[in-house]
């Protein structure tokens, strides 16, 4: 059996190589299309159109790497960033899986289970999008139905309401239980409330705000831990 480091190196080697191939692949698609149809845009046009997006998406990527990789582990991170829909599907899905299994992120078990979770999630999402693409015409009345539009427009409040309860309620972390963990959300929530409602709306800046909040959240938790408001106790086996 491989030790942890050997497995870690192998999954990262595989992830990096497959990501490099993926990088080439995504540029191949527009290149082949433009070559076959002879519709290559000018370099200046492409640069002008790309620059704005690049400047928005790159800081978001930095924030996602710093914030989400410690939670997901390497294997799940490669898959998550490659298949997209990170904060609305893959991250909550993996976190839910770890919570149900009672294992912590940044553990060997957590790394393995979050990779399985994200792989399954990616396959399901891709299948649903494929079905939609194939049935777009017959499904058009369903998608234009006001009730369906309302329900899907409210996916985030529905998702994060459920996540909030399950993450604040439990402190199960493998062989130990973290008690009073919920108190650690008060400080980041206050910071977001002050910034969002009194300074500027954070829509579009979520990635940057998460990046700023990470040290604040950990320092706040450290303070509560030192004061005995958050404690780590061994898990008592069920009788």
């Amino acid at each position: 059996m491989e030790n942890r480091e050997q497995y870690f190196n192998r999954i990262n080697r595989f992830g990096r190589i497959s990501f490099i191939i993926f990088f080439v692949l995504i540029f191949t698609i527009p290149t082949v299309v433009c070559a076959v149809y002879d519709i290559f845009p000018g370099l200046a046009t492409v640069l002008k159109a790309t620059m704005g997006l690049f400047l928005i998406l790159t800081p978001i990527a930095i924030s996602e790497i710093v914030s989400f990789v410690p939670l997901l582990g390497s294997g799940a991170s490669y898959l998550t960033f490659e298949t997209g829909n990170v904060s609305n599907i893959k991250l909550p899905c993996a976190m839910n899986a770890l919570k149900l299994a009672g294992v912590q992120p940044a553990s060997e078990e957590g790394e393995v289970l979050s990779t399985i979770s994200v792989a399954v999630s990616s396959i399901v999402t891709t299948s649903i999008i494929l079905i939609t693409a194939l049935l777009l015409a017959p499904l058009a009345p369903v998608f234009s139905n006001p009730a369906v539009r309302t329900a899907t427009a409210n996916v985030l409040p529905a998702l994060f309401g459920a996540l909030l309860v399950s993450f604040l309620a439990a402190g199960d972390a493998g062989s130990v239980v973290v008690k009073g963990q919920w108190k650690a959300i008060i400080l980041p929530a206050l910071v977001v409330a002050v910034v969002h409602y009194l300074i500027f709306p954070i829509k579009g800046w979520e990635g940057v705000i998460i990046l700023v909040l990470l040290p604040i959240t950990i320092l706040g938790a450290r303070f509560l831990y030192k004061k005995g408001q958050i404690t780590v106790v061994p898990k008592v086996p069920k009788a």
Partner: protein
Amino acid sequence: MEFFDVANGSLLFVLVGAGIAYVMVQCALFMRMSLKRARELGIDRKVISDTIKSSAVFTLAPSIAVALGLAAMAPSLGIAWPWFRLSVIGSVSYELMAANMATSALGFAKLADAAKAGAEPLGAIMYAMTGGLAGAIILDIIFIKKVDSLAVRLKAKAGDFGVVAIGVLFFAVLAVFVVPFFGQGVVAVATFVTSIVLTLFLAFVAKKFRLAWLGNFILAFSLILSMCSSVLWTAMVK
């Protein structure tokens, strides 16, 4: 050559299909490696099977929102390219914005205007949407391993507090997404509160009646039911 001749042409479908197939194979390979590792670590088969089932069910409802994104993008960009972007690398929250930003940088007021100008804008839009993510992909390739390794080391070094620190990291994400709901109107708040109540209720039912299977689907059921409740709240607000 017209915009939609290319956007809905068989060539783009074949290329996009191949790209998605590549990523699906990768999912399968990552899964195989993880399943093998799970067996080596002695993780219970039931835990693995519950992880697979709960992840599949959990993903259904948010995926419908992504499918709706495809339906929204298809009239402006055809089916193939949005299909690719929403299946791979893209996010339903950013894709339409990305397409619109690329279009406006090309000098068109909206996507529909670009589509009237022949096939050439499509090439530029596809390149721009891909190039916009180039920095992100390069950073992923370089830093995922480094950040993961650092997190594991810091967690080990911090002892018991390491467990707390990793546990509260996700709170930063929750705070950023949850707090703004309170300024998004009655329906968003009501849906959010419904989701909380349903989650608590289902957790209570699962515990009280010892329904272990329900425990794995609480989040998925709460998500779907509270999304449905938003229709009711919208009707009541009107």
